[in-house]
């Protein structure tokens, strides 16, 4: 490789290293960490709840055969005589005067809710205490609707828009413009710093959340999952988060060179991403979400009762293959960075107008 190019790459990496501390430790990055770790907190809370229930109920396990034998029409007294005291009971109101009760039992894996009205069993429902399949669907929903569309989107807005705009506001950008570095190399270095920070924060957040999801699950089910799609899912969730940072990072870096108010690019881009499903094929491809939605290993779950318009807004455009999506996203990123490098070449230090 040309020694000049090698030197420029070293300069870009040097800039990235100098910038990293500022990006990671900036006070204005605090909410980015909160966004990234919010799903981890939710799933940790869920895991703790499941674990506490398991611990509390483990001394009061009722054999499954006994619970299976409970039928509609059995009396409450009979149920308690056969199954013992429930692990929990809740009362509820039916109409104005009548009251009902739910007796919950636990067989070590499943939870049985027995519905009692007028001292007779009216219904019985059994479900796994912790439903792995359901939790994975919930995680997929969180990943698509919260992580990609909200956390990474706004996290990248906060990190990448401030790379140049923040320095302009702090009146420190001249420090970089007076270094013996080409402006496009400076852009590359700052982009690298933002990317390292965003990928570290959000990929770690996604992976951590995924691992926390597995924690309270049935160990046999988790083992089976690890032997099948588990590693691939983990990889693609991480990769999707990283590639989303790559794409959104480039867009917000460029936006930070053009406008001072972050609300403008956030609004424009979120609208653009939101109406992606309505756009013609070619325009759909000029979107970060179009590609990253295709990369996620589990499609976004969609309630069949969601209104049609909202369904179009939330549903991803026709998915493409993982490699086509990766290539497309890299192409979009390259074009946006090239445009940003043109802009940074013309950028001037004029703090008084900031």
């Amino acid at each position, binding site marked *: 490789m040309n020694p000049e190019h090698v*030197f420029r790459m*070293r*300069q870009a990496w*040097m*800039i990235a290293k*100098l910038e990293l*501390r*500022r990006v990671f*430790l*900036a006070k204005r990055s605090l909410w980015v960490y909160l966004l990234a770790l919010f799903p981890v907190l939710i799933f940790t809370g869920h895991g703790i709840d499941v674990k506490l229930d398991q611990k509390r109920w483990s001394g009061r396990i009722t054999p499954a055969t006994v619970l299976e034998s409970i039928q509609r029409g059995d009396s409450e007294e009979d149920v308690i005589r056969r199954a013992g005291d429930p692990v929990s009971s809740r009362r509820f109101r039916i109409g104005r005067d009548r009251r009902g009760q739910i007796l919950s039992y636990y067989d070590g894996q499943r939870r049985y809710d027995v519905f009692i009205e007028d001292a007779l069993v009216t219904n019985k429902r059994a479900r796994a205490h912790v439903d792995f399949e359901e939790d994975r669907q919930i995680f997929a929903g969180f990943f698509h609707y919260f992580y990609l569309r909200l956390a990474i989107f706004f996290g990248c807005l906060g990190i990448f828009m401030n790379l140049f705009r923040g*320095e302009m506001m*702090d*009146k*420190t950008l*001249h*420090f970089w*413009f*007076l*270094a*013996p*570095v*080409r*402006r496009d*190399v400076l852009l590359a270095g700052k982009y690298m710093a933002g990317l390292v920070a965003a990928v570290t924060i959000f990929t770690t957040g996604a992976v951590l959340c995924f691992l926390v999801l597995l924690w309270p699950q049935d160990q046999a089910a988790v083992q089976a999952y690890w032997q099948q799609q588990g590693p691939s899912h983990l990889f693609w969730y991480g990769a999707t988060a990283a590639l989303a940072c790559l794409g959104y990072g480039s867009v917000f870096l460029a936006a930070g060179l053009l406008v001072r108010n972050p609300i403008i690019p956030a609004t424009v881009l979120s609208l653009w991403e939101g109406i992606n499903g309505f756009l013609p094929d070619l325009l759909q491809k000029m979107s970060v979400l179009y590609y990253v939605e295709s990369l996620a290993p589990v499609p976004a779950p969609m309630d069949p009762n969601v209104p049609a318009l909202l369904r179009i807004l939330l549903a991803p455009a026709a998915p493409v293959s993982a490699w086509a999506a990766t290539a497309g996203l890299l192409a979009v990123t390259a074009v946006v960075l090239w445009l940003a490098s043109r802009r940074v*070449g*013309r950028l*001037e*230090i*004029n*703090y*008084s*107008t900031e």
Partner: protein
Amino acid sequence: MTGLAQKASSAPPFAKEIVFDEVSKFYGEVLGVNRVSLRIPGGITSLVGPNGSGKTTLMNLMTGLVHPDRGSITVGGLSPREPEKLMRILGYATQYDAAPRGATGFEFVSAPLFLHGHSAAEARRLAWQALERVSLTDAAGRKVAGYSKGMRQRVRLAQAIAHDPEILVLDEPLNGLDPLVRAETIALFREFAARGRHVILSSHVLQEVDVISDQVILIANGMVIAEGQIRNVRDEIQEHPSQFMIRCRDASRLASLLFEMEHVAEVKLHPDRQGMLVLTRNRQEFSLALTKLAANGSPVESVMAADENVDALYEYLIGGGR
């Protein structure tokens, strides 16, 4: 106007000049500089003018922080649009006070040296050497944000000289320095210039820089109004006719008295016969003569400079420094 003089130092001058060719810069509708043409040779050159006159704009233009709307600039044969080349031969201590968030004095000076391609050890050595030159080694480990104004001034100077540039550009470098440090800093400029290099500094007080400058460029309202060796510029301004508006009750009598004076070139009576416009070639003599006339009973009500730019610059030249 006189052309800029070649450096008087015995050392060979830095061969390449800084050339402005018909350069104009506007900030929206506000004029930065207008049609500036300059050739700045080596040595110490001072840009002098009141606040807002365009000194910083000229410096920012030659360092590529802003780009001209019209005209062209070369600095040592390089375009300011090539920072990767230009910043190897140029160091700029700006007037901007801020340093990157959390940076210590040492980091502030050493970081650009890494980008020059120096090894870590070499960068540390050069940074330390530069900090020693400005007597700031004791505070090197402290954050720049906690520095006093004078310390910030010095750390910016240290950063500008750390890579031993051929051209040193300094925006108001003596502001906020105590007398001892000021003397050391001036000695540093002289040493740089003696090695045949450019030192370009700005000031709004001519008195502050005239004793150290090889040449001076006077700027007002974005235009270069005088340039050259300090002695020539002083003479040039002294000879530049100045206009004054005088209001008085007996204008005709005062006009005839003033017109007899050698330095008064023209007197125009106001149509209301209560005032006049006087053109003089020597403001000092005019001022003395008018004071004497007023003391002898001439009814002078007010005297006002009709040409504010020249007035301001005149004041700078004679050391008033408004």
